[in-house]
Structure formats: C-alpha cells, structure tokens
C-alpha cells in the first residue's frame, strides 16, 4: 500500500500506476456536477476561482449532514460520469487528481494523459468508513448547493485505488477483462455471443 501526500506532486502523479492501492493524506476539494459547471463558467469568463485549481485533487462527493461532534457525515464517492463533460477543462487548468467511482469518458482520459492527471477510485457505498478518514471539512464556496457545495477536506489515510493513471491505463477495462478470461478458463458463465436482444439499455450516470 502506497502512501501519497496531497496536493499531488507532478512526480507522484506520474509514478502512480493503474491498480495501485493508495492511502491519501492531505487536502481535497469536494465538487459534484453543479459545482463543476460553475467552475467552468468562471474559467470561461476568466474570473478567479474560490480555490487554487493548480495541482489540486477533487473528490466527487455529496456527504450526509454532519452529526453533532463530527466533522462530516457519511461521505463516499458519487458516479464520476456526471463530471465527464467538465473534467477535461479543469484538467487543462491544472487539476492533478480526481477521486470518484466508475469509468471515465475517452475525452477525460485523453486530457489526463496530456496534462498528467490521475483518477482514483474510492469504494462506493463505504461512506461511513471513508468519513473516518476525513479530519475536517470546511465550506469554500456555493453554500446554496447544499450537499453539493465546494468544501475543503483534510484527509488521513483515505483508501483509494489508482483506476486510471497518467498514461491512460484503465483498470475499469483491464480488470474485468482479466477476470472474464479467468472465468472462461474455469468454464464459468457459458458465455454466448451477444446480439439477439431487441435493444440495448440506456446509459445513466
């Protein structure tokens, strides 16, 4: 298990490889799609941002309200695809790390490769466990967004996996492919070619 300090240095970002289990310690900023939209609007207008984006790591999270005496409520990752439309712009403006869950679009991965950004997967549905790693949480901007506001969090030994590294290696592709082959070797699943079903399911996110 690697220990990594935030903000991520460009060197650390480049040494991390898809599949590495990592413990993150340091500063994260929280943002979901609504906050991403506002950040992109400020960038487009050339206006200052409420926090320093250069070298920052964003955590895609909307926590439950903090119970009395606790810094934060339950705080697991949300689905990252909702941020896909905005992430390339943020990455081009210096964003170096993202923490969320689920695969990313090809455009996000291309931006990550071009600018040296890492995408970490946290365990979805482990909100109580992750909350224990969050030592403080303070509002930075856009209180009107409620749970989706931007907050600065100090985390300690936050367990994540490098899902997509700076070279574009993607564990969401290589992981399942390897384990599907393992299943085939065991003769599991009796897989048959696809293509009979009338329709393909719509994508959510």
């Amino acid at each position, binding site marked *: 298990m690697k220990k990594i300090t935030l903000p991520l240095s460009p060197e650390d970002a480049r040494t991390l490889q898809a*599949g590495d289990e990592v413990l993150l310690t340091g500063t994260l900023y929280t943002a979901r799609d609504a906050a991403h939209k506002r950040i992109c609007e400020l960038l487009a207008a050339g206006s200052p941002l409420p926090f320093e984006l250069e070298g920052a790591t964003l955590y895609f*999270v*909307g*926590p*439950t*309200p*903090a119970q009395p005496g606790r810094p934060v*409520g*339950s*705080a*697991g990752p*949300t*689905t990252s*695809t909702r941020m896909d439309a905005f992430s390339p712009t943020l990455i081009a403006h210096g964003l170096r790390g993202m923490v969320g*869950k*689920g*695969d990313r679009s090809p455009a996000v991965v291309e931006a990550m490769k071009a600018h040296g950004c890492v995408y970490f*997967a946290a*365990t*979805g*549905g*482990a*909100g*109580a*466990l992750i*909350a*224990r790693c969050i030592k403080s949480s303070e509002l930075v901007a856009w209180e009107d967004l*409620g*749970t989706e506001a931007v907050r600065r969090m100090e985390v300690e030994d936050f*367990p994540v*996996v490098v899902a997509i590294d700076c070279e574009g290696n993607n*564990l*969401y592709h*290589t*992981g*399942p*492919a*390897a*384990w*599907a082959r*393992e*299943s*085939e070797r065991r003769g*599991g*699943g*009796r*897989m*048959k070619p*696809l*293509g*009979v*079903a*009338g*329709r*393909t*399911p*719509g*994508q*959510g*996110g």
Partner: protein
Amino acid sequence: MRTIHSDAIVSAVAEICQEAAFRLPADVRRALEEARGTEKSPLGLSILGQITENADLAERERVPMCQDTGVAVYFVELGNEVRIEGLGLAEALAEGTRQGYTEGYLRMSIVKDPLFERVNTKTNGPPVVHVELVPGDRLRITLAPKGGGSENMSAMAMLKPLVGKEGVAEFVVETVRRAGGNACPPIIVGLGLGGNFERAPYLAKKALLRKLGSVHPDPRYAAFERELLERVNATGVGPQGLGGRTTALAVHIEAAPCHIASLPVAVNLNCHAARHASVEL
C-alpha cells in the same frame, strides 16, 4: 374495522428510515461475507473487506452506511379492514420520511422538478409509494431506500417473445456489463418479467426485496436465477467494477402474465448497500 392513527405511522416510518440507513440487513451482510470466501482478486477482496467493515461501523456508530440515503420507496400492504385516521396514508409516509431523514442526519436527495426546478425539497419527499390491498386488519410498511448510482444504470426493454430465455439473459448480462462500477458492485439484480410496460419495473424492484439466499418457488425460475448469476459473474466486472469474481450477490426474478405480443423485461440493479426495513402496525 381497525383504526390506526396517522401519528403511529409517522413515528414508525421515521424510525425505519434511520434503521435502514444505519443497519445492513443480516442476509446481505451474510452474502458479502460468503463473497469474501470465493473472491480471488486481491483488490476485490480488499474492497469487500472495506464494504463489510463499513457496514459494521455504520451500525455501531449509527452513521449512514452510504451518503446516498436515497429515494424513499415504500411497499405498503394495507389490510382491507384498516381505517387510517388523521393524515392520509401518502401524507403520513411523507411526514415520517421528513422526520426520519431530519432526525437521522440523512441526506435529502430529492429535487422538486426533473427539468425546470431542480431545487431540493429538503424533506426527501415526496416518497415513492406502492400500495397493495390485502385481507386482514394489519398495515405493513417496507422501506427500500434507493441510491442514484444503481438506479441510473437500470434498464427496461420490450423484447420480442421469441427471443425467449436467451434474449432475456443477454439483456441482463449486457445491462450489468454496461453498469460496470457505476452501480457499486457487488450488486443484486432484480429482474421483472412480464406484466406490461409499467408493471415490469415494479416487479424488478419488488424482486430486490426477497431475502438473499432464498430460492424462487418455481423451480424453472430458480434454475434461471442460478444460470443468470453465473453468467453475470462471468463478466469479470467484479467488486466496484475493477475486476473479480463477485459482480452480483444474487439475481432475483418476479414474473407475471403478459400480452401474447409482449415480453417486457426490466432490470433494476441494487448496490451492495441493499437497504430495507419493515414495520407492521
């Protein structure tokens, strides 16, 4: 007739909202433990370990196991000899939800309008309510809070009847594969078959309520559930979509009669935080 005052419904519902958020049902906890015995991916095992540790922590400290405390979905069995006094049933459920989510520090996740006014209602309401009239003088309320991650990856299709079992299986496997890590695997797959366009998704959601480890009463569907589980797990999607043997803990089917021209199929995915809680009044 037996009279139940809405106050009793409100307080019971407020309690099960918190119960569901803090305490993973024993059958789900057991299934996750069993998965730790069969998973071979080291990363998958590490993730399953985090998930079970998270469930224990949530219960011990009364913290929501997941920050997405969901849409409150109620399945109500209303005895035909029950008369509700005070608020109407829907209002009582909404008020119980508001109180439970407020008192439990749960996340309010509902917006007023899907398109024009995405403003938080701050009550986590209105809830989604399914009422079934049953004989007797009891009122049974089951809450299944549903998170957005797995709900968003669910899918529905009107298949041609001739595609049969194989067509259904392909639709299920493809839905799970496309969902990948977004649905927070290991998942539970609820499969609704038959009925009509609006009935199939209801059946799929209802299928998610069945106890893990229970066997479908129809041996043909019991065998189909086993086959589907095997095929879903053969995708290699694994815990959190990062690869492994454990993609799903179970596939549950609810089937209903349908039109001669139709084969409605709905796949409702549930994340590993398969929360539900019931109360009988």
